[in-house]
């Protein structure tokens, strides 16, 4: 991963010499370049915040949808199934438009761009989270439930202290993938005017008319962000493993 980043950096440095590039738009040595760069980076906060809030909600909803999928009652399993199938068959972009423009008409509530984005992202991701949680919980051996029940724990405590902590360790890589997916998909919320990374880049392109350089910066912004996240997830995995051995 580090090597890919270095390679890209090198490529950029070289291409800067070729004459077709106009790096001045984001040259930190000039006032306007520095301002443009700051303008582009100012979307970072929203991208991160939006993704963080959305994934917190989608994990919670995902868990709440996964639990009935594992229940002994067929109608609960079916309800969970229907939710997953329904939600994951709607394209995210369509969901964003529907939540932002449609939902307020349906409910009479007006939604801010931010919360419309959060709801759409969380809803969309929750179907995948439900599948991940279901798989993770199912992978825990039956003996763990039986041991927990035989020291008098009820269902809730068994899930909370015995099953979920083990399931979470197992699904951590998948959760990391979902977070990365979320960071990337948050760019779609730019269509309803969310001032995140992609929207900022679009706005600057309209003013400066330098799409190549500005979108290259955008690519780099996502790349660095996601490299940081994925190494964070791997660090956490290693720490949890070290804990037990």
């Amino acid at each position, binding site marked *: 991963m580090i090597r890919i980043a270095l390679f890209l950096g090198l490529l950029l440095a070289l291409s800067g010499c070729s004459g077709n590039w106009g790096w001045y738009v984001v040259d930190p040595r000039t006032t306007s370049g520095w301002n443009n760069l700051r303008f582009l980076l100012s979307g970072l906060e929203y991208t991160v915040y939006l993704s963080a809030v959305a994934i917190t909600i989608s994990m919670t909803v995902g868990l709440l949808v996964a639990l009935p999928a594992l229940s002994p009652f067929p109608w609960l399993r079916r309800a969970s199934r229907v939710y997953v199938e329904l939600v994951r068959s709607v394209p995210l972009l369509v969901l964003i438009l529907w939540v932002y423009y449609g939902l307020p008409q349906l409910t009479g509530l007006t939604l801010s761009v931010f919360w419309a984005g959060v709801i759409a992202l969380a809803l969309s991701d929750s179907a995948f989270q439900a599948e991940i949680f279901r798989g993770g919980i199912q992978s825990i051996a039956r003996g763990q439930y039986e041991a927990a029940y035989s*020291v*008098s724990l009820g269902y809730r405590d068994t899930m909370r202290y015995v099953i979920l902590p*083990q399931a979470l360790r197992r699904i951590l890589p998948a959760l990391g993938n979902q977070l990365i997916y979320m960071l990337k998909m948050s760019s779609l919320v730019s269509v309803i005017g969310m001032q995140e990374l992609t929207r900022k880049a679009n706005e600057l392109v309209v003013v400066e008319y330098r799409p190549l350089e500005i979108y290259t910066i955008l690519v780099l912004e996502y790349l660095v962000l996601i490299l940081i996240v994925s190494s964070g997830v791997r660090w956490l995995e290693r720490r949890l493993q070290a804990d037990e051995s």
Partner: protein
Amino acid sequence: MSAEMPEDSAPLIEFDAVSKDFGKFRALNGIDLEVGRGERLVICGPSGSGKSTLIRCINGLEQIDSGRIVVDGVALEPGGRGARQVRGKVGMVFQQFNLFPHLTVLENLTLGPVRARGLSRADAEATARRYLARVRIPEQAEKYPRQLSGGQQQRVAIARSLCMEPGIMLFDEPTSALDPEMINEVLDVMTELAETGMTMIVVTHEMGFARRVADRVVFMDAGEIVEMAPPDRFFTAPESQRCRDFLQKLLHH
């Protein structure tokens, strides 16, 4: 019923015509059994004969399909809800140990007492350390299960059950998953537990343990209790042919 029975003579565990089906398969077929307070019962029998199912019915890990089980005054009936109440009185030790791998030994031992019995953490830890000393691994408290040998893990599992202060202990082939050299360290702990007067039901094929410790030995086959007798009679003069065959096979391998 005018005359009340004195409490001590009433059985602690009572099976009354208990049957259990898995789909069309009958795993237990009309089991009648009484176990007195302080009694040690050993159950043996071929694989698939229903030994595990029988003891798992006692703490409600399996729901029975007909008949009735009474455990220390709590009734377990088909579709009934006595399981949670019974589990407070019954400890269980599994063939595969089933320790919680993400928790330390000490946390394995205190989880039930703190969450289900409402003990303070300090009290639960004190109890846990006492039982760890009793199963002779006081120094392993801070380790994780996978850092222990099989014999040590099974002793932790026994201590975990004892921390719930149960009146009855169930053992489902506690030494079957162990390397031969670790079997005795677990059997010794169980023998000592028997000497404290604990009511114990032990599914095992360790016949030496049965001879030493059991008050009665039960032979099961095809979901039924075929033979039940004190060890001296059980091993010298079994009545049924099936039991004789089974003992023959055990001795000759």
